[in-house]
């Protein structure tokens, strides 16, 4: 065949494939559902790779922790698995947590529970975890300086079933339970301890956990407290869990065998759904108009709401646009140019809710302020233009340009030079049609205000690595806006404080937002026992706009076989196989 013919064939093949895809209606396969097993689709591109119930930075993933929590139950399971965020005592080792009157300590009572090898679960197993974390805190993924375990001064085993944890000062009990005590997982000291040396034990456990091929065979991982054990765990990501027959907790497994299936792409996962080989999977918001095709195949479509906020951080230290971003009126103009209501309804097909502040609003909570609920900056490109023109900007060649520099009330503001153009670029997460469409819509409405908004896309890991905290003199500080929130930018623990996100020098405060008043409000929200503190924080950031607030999408649009039920989808984005049941 001549090279020309080969090229011709290649061209035809490419296009024919596209057309075939367009016309393809999918194939139906035999159902994998049986009363004894379930096939659950893991998120695309995620491969389970860590069994140890202590996360390290290289293995930080909510799905890894969902699997490990199924094997080793936490002391306090504070999640949304019961339908609302709270302490799920059925899935916890502890039965009570009594805070001292001064809120400087807590006495925790353990249930009468046993390991799978028959030994009792005691306060020594809690202390074993505590000592491991204290001695190796810098390797622990949950560590944030000043917080657990730094603010835990001691843990004392009062007797076999009681421990007392003392803090460095008084804390909000709800915050302490929801955001710190939920980390504690009693571990089998009798099976895992290496001579009482927590550093040596840490190394030993981590080395063992690096051998994924040994997860199903290593006796270390056989001493469990949770409802399931590992039957097989392939390096390709398929995990088979088998019910723990010795489990004596409150969440008895409803289905004997759970198959967790990995997928490289969402398309592959959707094809598996269409073939019937997945019992509990997901589709994208853009696929919602195909809902009937899934219900016709015996599925139900149920959105899974996440306890998350979605936003686009400004880089306040960017040399060119940082001075503009520091002007509140400029941030207001940007925020007023984004029609969140329409984006949530049209682009997300109704599977997102507008987000106007730092507290998730997908679910009702006592944390959100009225100010945030009311949206202080409603969509209006004319109001946005007025904000800019009244501050020394005028439109030149379609782009607002600073013509009156200075720090006066009607001038552009400190550090904004004459001739500065209001043009900015976002590095946005690639691979999602919904995100691409949202960015196009934002670009369009910003253009009406006179703000030029260009879009560059990259895989989410590249976005995160290319948009770090930085100082203006660093070459990496060229980024202006970042977006990594296709499925929500930030998933909170149960108590949604913003210490990592919006506190000065917070670990995930990518854009270096800093405001002394907000710092105080964040500190107050973790120490005050009243919800007023966190509501004040909510109102303050709804008005101050540390980031561009965007619609909060559902965590996923779940598609599950009819008859699968008996559980609520955890808004903290964990899955709980023990709660799944075939009801019919």
């Amino acid at each position, binding site marked *: 065949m001549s090279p020309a013919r080969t090229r011709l064939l290649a*061209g035809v093949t490419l296009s024919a494939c*596209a057309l075939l895809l367009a016309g393809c209606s999918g194939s139906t396969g035999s159902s994998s559902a049986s009363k004894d097993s379930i096939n659950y689709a893991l998120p695309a591109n995620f491969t389970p790779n860590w069994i140890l119930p202590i996360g390290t930075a290289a293995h930080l993933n909510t799905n890894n922790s969902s699997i490990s929590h199924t094997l080793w139950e936490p002391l306090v399971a504070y999640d949304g698995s019961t339908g609302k965020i709270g302490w799920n005592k059925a899935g916890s080792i502890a039965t009570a947590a009594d805070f001292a009157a001064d809120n400087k300590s807590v006495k925790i009572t353990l249930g009468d529970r046993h390991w799978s090898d028959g030994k009792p679960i005691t306060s020594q197993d809690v202390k074993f975890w505590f000592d491991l974390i204290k001695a190796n805190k810098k390797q622990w993924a949950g560590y944030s300086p000043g917080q657990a375990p730094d603010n835990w001064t001691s843990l004392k085993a009062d007797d076999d079933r009681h421990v007392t944890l003392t803090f460095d000062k008084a804390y909000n009990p709800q915050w302490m339970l929801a955001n710190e005590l939920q980390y504690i997982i009693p571990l089998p000291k009798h099976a895992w301890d290496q001579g009482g040396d927590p550093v040596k034990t840490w190394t030993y456990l981590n080395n063992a956990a690096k051998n994924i091929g040994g997860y199903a065979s290593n006796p270390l991982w056989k001493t469990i407290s949770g409802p399931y054990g590992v039957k097989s765990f392939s390096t390709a990501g398929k995990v088979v869990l088998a019910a723990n027959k010795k489990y004596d907790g409150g969440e008895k497994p409803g289905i004997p065998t759970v198959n967790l299936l990995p997928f490289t792409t969402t398309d592959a996962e959707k094809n598996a759904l269409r073939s019937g080989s997945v019992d509990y999977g997901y589709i994208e918001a853009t696929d919602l108009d195909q809902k009937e095709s899934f219900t016709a195949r015996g599925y139900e479509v149920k959105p899974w709401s996440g306890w998350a906020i979605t936003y686009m951080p400004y880089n306040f230290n960017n040399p060119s646009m940082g001075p503009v971003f520091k002007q509140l009126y400029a941030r207001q103009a940007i925020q007023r140019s984004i029609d969140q209501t329409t984006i949530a309804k049209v682009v997300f097909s109704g599977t997102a809710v507008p987000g106007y502040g730092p507290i998730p609003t997908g679910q009702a909570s006592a944390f959100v302020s009225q100010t945030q609920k009311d949206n202080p900056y409603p969509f209006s490109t004319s109001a946005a233009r007025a904000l800019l023109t009244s501050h020394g900007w005028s439109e030149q060649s379609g782009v607002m340009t600073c013509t009156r520099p200075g720090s006066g009330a009607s001038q552009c503001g400190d550090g904004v030079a004459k001739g500065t153009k209001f043009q900015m670029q976002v590095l946005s997460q690639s691979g999602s049609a919904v995100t691409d469409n949202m960015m196009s819509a934002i670009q*369009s409405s910003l253009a009406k205000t006179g703000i030029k908004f260009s879009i560059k896309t990259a895989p989410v890991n590249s976005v995160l690595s290319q948009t770090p905290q930085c100082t203006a003199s660093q070459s990496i500080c060229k980024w202006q806006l970042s977006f990594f929130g296709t499925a929500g930018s930030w998933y909170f623990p149960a108590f949604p404080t913003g210490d990592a996100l919006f506190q000065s020098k917070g670990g995930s405060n990518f854009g270096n937002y800093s405001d002394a008043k907000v710092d105080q409000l964040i500190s107050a929200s973790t120490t005050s026992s009243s919800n007023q503190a966190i509501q004040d924080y909510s109102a303050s950031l709804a008005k101050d706009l540390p980031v561009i607030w965007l619609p909060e999408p559902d965590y996923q649009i779940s598609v599950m076989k009819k008859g699968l039920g008996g559980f609520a989808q955890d808004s903290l984005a964990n899955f709980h196989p023990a709660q799944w049941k075939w009801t019919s």
Partner: protein
Amino acid sequence: MSAVLQSTTPTAEPVANYRLSLRRFTRNKLAVAGLVVVVVFLLFCFVGPLLYSTDQTHTDLHQVNLGPSGAHWLGTDAVGHDEVGRLMFGGQVSLLVGLAAGVLATVIGTLWGATAGYVGGWADAVMMRVVDAGIAIPALFILLVVSAITTPDTLGLILVLGLVSWLVPSRLVRAETLTLKSRDYVLTLRATGGTHGRAIARHILPNSVSTIVVAATFQVADAILLVAYVSYLGLGVQPPKTDWGGMLSAGLTAAYSGRWWLIVPPGLAIILVVCAFNAIGDGLRDAFDVRGRG
């Protein structure tokens, strides 16, 4: 004597040859059809917007995913762009990048190949090893890396595609040059004091035109496909710009939703234009093929 004259004055014969070639080309119905298709698409993409005006800069979230109608002949996409206007708008990028990158690749390849073939010796060896090394690296890989590092735009795509696609034309032109440089008229020019540059400009390149033109048409087709590949992977030009590959990629999410108008038109456009350029290339090759002349 006549043989000497023929070899020292080759320019008269090419003129006659080109007339013959043109006649042979016009007799090739597939090639002519290809030319018509290319011309139609060029008119559609570059003149069409003057007759069928649409807003391809702003989205309209109140007009999304509409089916074909009198108001929108091919419906609208997921952010409310008119699909016919989008085809024109995207086609401008696809065709412009394809044509410009094809020409750029051919120019670079021609200069490189002609120089290597004519100079010969160690220079030829070094230059062709560079070509061999370049061909060993998949062009798509280089494109993806560059797209990840820089923000892709039309000019950037032209440059990158041109700079990764010149290798094959350079080999073809070098082979042609090796045969031409030992012809009598080239040797005579050199013997009478003509410079190497004059030999290349006066004899080597004009007599390689058939090879170069054929290569160029295939380069254009390849470049259009490469743009489609890159855009399909989400690394093409960024919104509000688009190209046919990007449209195809965006439309595939609607593959199961029955919104054929988001997939079939850009898919067909890529098929037709790539096939058309290949047909033109085949026609030109047959037209210039000396062995086929009766």
